[in-house]
């Protein structure tokens, strides 16, 4: 996609972007006058489709129809004798010749996907790093850019690597604030699959049953009001457990596995912020055997999809984990890439991205038929890889969350035939090196059912379901980079039936949306509620040195 492709990209006038001030040029970075440099020596060709032959005596007789192609009079006929070649004047721009005037027009090689006037970095680079060609640390949020003002909005507004410096989420969290069902009354039962936020709306993704089990999604604002009505991800009758979503800064990408063609295959579709589908489904798989447990994230201008795939099972192989990249417009980039080893049963992948690398966890069936965890990290082309297998004794598949430049791996351990009572976690660096070894993150309950993690940059919001108080309820806490408690356990639901399977997303105004499943009306349904974020008050008698976090006073600051 071009930076100048119409209204999709919005440049705020007067904002500085990597040292170049832009005025009303619609995003075009035009280098004036001498831009037309060397020309190629290619001669113009003839044949079908070539322009009519002009006779001439001198060069000036030749009518120039494309100012980017130089004409000359050769043997009394006008011929193209070369093309304008735009020199590289800046590795962060690429030049193309304007055929109207014959001068080079330069566009950035990176894009401003969130329209905040700052360019995102090249894939695989860190914002503001040399060669990154962009300094927007989060090009999916228009309120995050260098020099921005930090507010309690779930975003690293000033690009200092810390989200919501000094904020609190749980101190005054109300039980079931704004609770509402997610699905419509037309559905018999519903169950959550994913929750994301972008462009002023939560997108709650869920499955719903009536005469079949179909994938739905629904737009909800931070006050719990509809932004758009319930819609199908795919209008088919086959079975699905709902779609996984990611927000690109402009559109929502959804990956879905369903069996409409007689086998579970994975497709991709995009939706605008009003929930309208943008084009037909793009199929990522079409092979014998299930392709399921699909996940998608959006990272540095690309949708990244992972899933487990049984395509090799009928050939005597095992299920493997694959990946597929798509550009921001939903076009496939390359082919399916196998991420797990041949001959090893690998399933249930989950992927996260730091600025520099991908982190992937998936299950592995060991020769003893136990379930181990494989942790892999990759560069952004899935080339350079690290891998390490852990016997975490997990009951449910492990999850992975990017936390700054580290990966937080969390899981629910087994305890006999069921789940244990504590969520466990470990923190690894971008190459899988251990930063904080395994420790219990929660305690006190006989069983944990499920959990979700939301990165706060240098902390994480952990939301989970356990039976500390009898039936399963939803709880939350905030943990730090040492995996220690920052904000203690806080109860978020109170119902007679089990509340399980939380999903999390955060608005740009600091509200955290939580979707979970519950049977409080006797039939299973997905519900939505929110918790807020409060900035810590700075001690008025406290002076903080530059670089201190105001809320950290007095530990960081002095009276």
């Amino acid at each position: 996609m071009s930076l100048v492709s119409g209204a999709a990209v919005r440049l705020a006038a007067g904002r500085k972007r990597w040292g170049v001030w832009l005025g009303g040029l619609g995003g075009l970075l035009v280098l004036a006058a001498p831009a037309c440099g060397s020309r190629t020596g290619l001669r113009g060709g003839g044949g079908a489709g070539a322009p009519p032959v002009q006779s001439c005596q001198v060069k000036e007789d030749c009518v120039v129809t494309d100012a980017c192609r130089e004409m000359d009079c050769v043997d009394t006929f006008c011929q193209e004798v070369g093309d304008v070649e735009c020199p590289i004047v800046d590795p962060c721009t690429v030049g193309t010749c304007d055929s109207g005037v014959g001068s080079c027009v330069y566009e950035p090689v990176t894009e401003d996907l969130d329209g905040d006037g700052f360019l995102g970095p090249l894939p695989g680079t860190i914002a503001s790093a040399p060669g990154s060609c962009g300094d927007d640390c989060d090009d999916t949020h228009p309120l995050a850019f260098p020099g921005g003002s930090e507010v309690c909005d779930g975003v690293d507004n000033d690009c200092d690597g810390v989200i919501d410096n000094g904020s609190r989420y749980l101190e005054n969290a109300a039980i079931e604030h704004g609770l509402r069902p997610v699905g419509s009354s037309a559905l018999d039962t519903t169950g959550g699959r994913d929750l994301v936020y972008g462009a002023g709306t939560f997108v709650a993704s869920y499955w719903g049953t009536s005469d079949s089990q179909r994938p739905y999604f629904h737009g909800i604002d931070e006050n719990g009001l509809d932004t758009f009505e319930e819609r199908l991800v795919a209008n088919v009758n086959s079975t699905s457990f709902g779609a996984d979503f990611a927000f690109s800064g402009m559109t929502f990408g959804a990956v879905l596995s369903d069996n409409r063609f007689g086998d579970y295959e994975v497709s991709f579709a995009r939706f605008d912020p009003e929930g309208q589908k943008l084009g037909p489904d793009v199929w990522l798989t079409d092979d014998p055997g299930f392709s399921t447990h699909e996940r998608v994230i959006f990272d540095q201008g690309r949708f990244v999809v992972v899933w487990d795939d049984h395509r090799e099972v009928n050939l005597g192989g095992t299920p493997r984990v694959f990946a597929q990249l798509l550009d921001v417009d939903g076009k496939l980039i390359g082919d399916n890439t196998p991420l797990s080893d041949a001959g090893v049963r690998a399933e249930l992948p989950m992927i996260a991205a730091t600025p520099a690398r991908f982190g992937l966890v998936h299950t592995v069936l060991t020769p003893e038929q136990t379930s181990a965890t494989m942790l892999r990290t990759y560069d952004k082309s899935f080339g350079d890889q690290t891998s390490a297998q852990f016997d975490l004794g997990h009951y449910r598949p492990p999850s992975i969350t990017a936390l700054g430049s580290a990966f937080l791996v969390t899981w629910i351990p087994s305890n006999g035939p069921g789940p244990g009572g504590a969520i466990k976690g470990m923190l690894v660096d971008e190459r899988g090196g251990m930063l904080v070894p395994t420790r219990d993150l929660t305690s006190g309950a006989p069983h944990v059912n499920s959990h979700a993690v939301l990165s706060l940059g240098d902390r994480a919001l952990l939301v989970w379901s356990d039976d500390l108080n009898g039936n399963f309820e939803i709880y939350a806490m905030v943990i730090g980079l040492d995996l220690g408690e920052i904000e203690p356990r806080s109860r978020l639901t109170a119902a007679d039936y089990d509340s399980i399977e939380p999903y999390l997303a955060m608005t740009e105004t600091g509200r955290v949306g939580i979707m979970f499943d519950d049977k409080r009306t006797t039939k299973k349904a997905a519900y939505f509620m929110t918790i807020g974020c409060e900035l810590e008050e700075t001690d008025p008698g406290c002076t903080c040195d530059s670089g201190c976090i105001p809320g950290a006073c007095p530990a960081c600051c002095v009276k």
Partner: protein
Amino acid sequence: MEEECPDEPPPPVVPMCDPLSPREGCPDGQGCYPYLVYPNGEGCGFPTFGAQCAYASSGAQGEVCGMGNYCEPGFMCVIGATAGARCAKVCSLVEPSGCPAGLVCNETDVLGYGVCF
């Protein structure tokens, strides 16, 4: 934009037996298992659900199944819970589920039947 599937009713569900009472109504040596037949592959078909008697196997909760090893009556062989296909107890999606302590009844792609996990 996208072709819509015709508004047709799904095929009827014809349970030949009750997976929640898996030994009732089945001959000795057999049990009642839920089943699922995938759509015909043309894009708009419905899956077909049901339950029928089949030869009983021996896989218990959490044991690896598939490739000739299947589950004892009252259990289903499912993927997605943890590594590998595993036997899981068939349960009612309407309370009470009958699941052991610490487990809840989760939906499967056999509409109407869940498994304890």
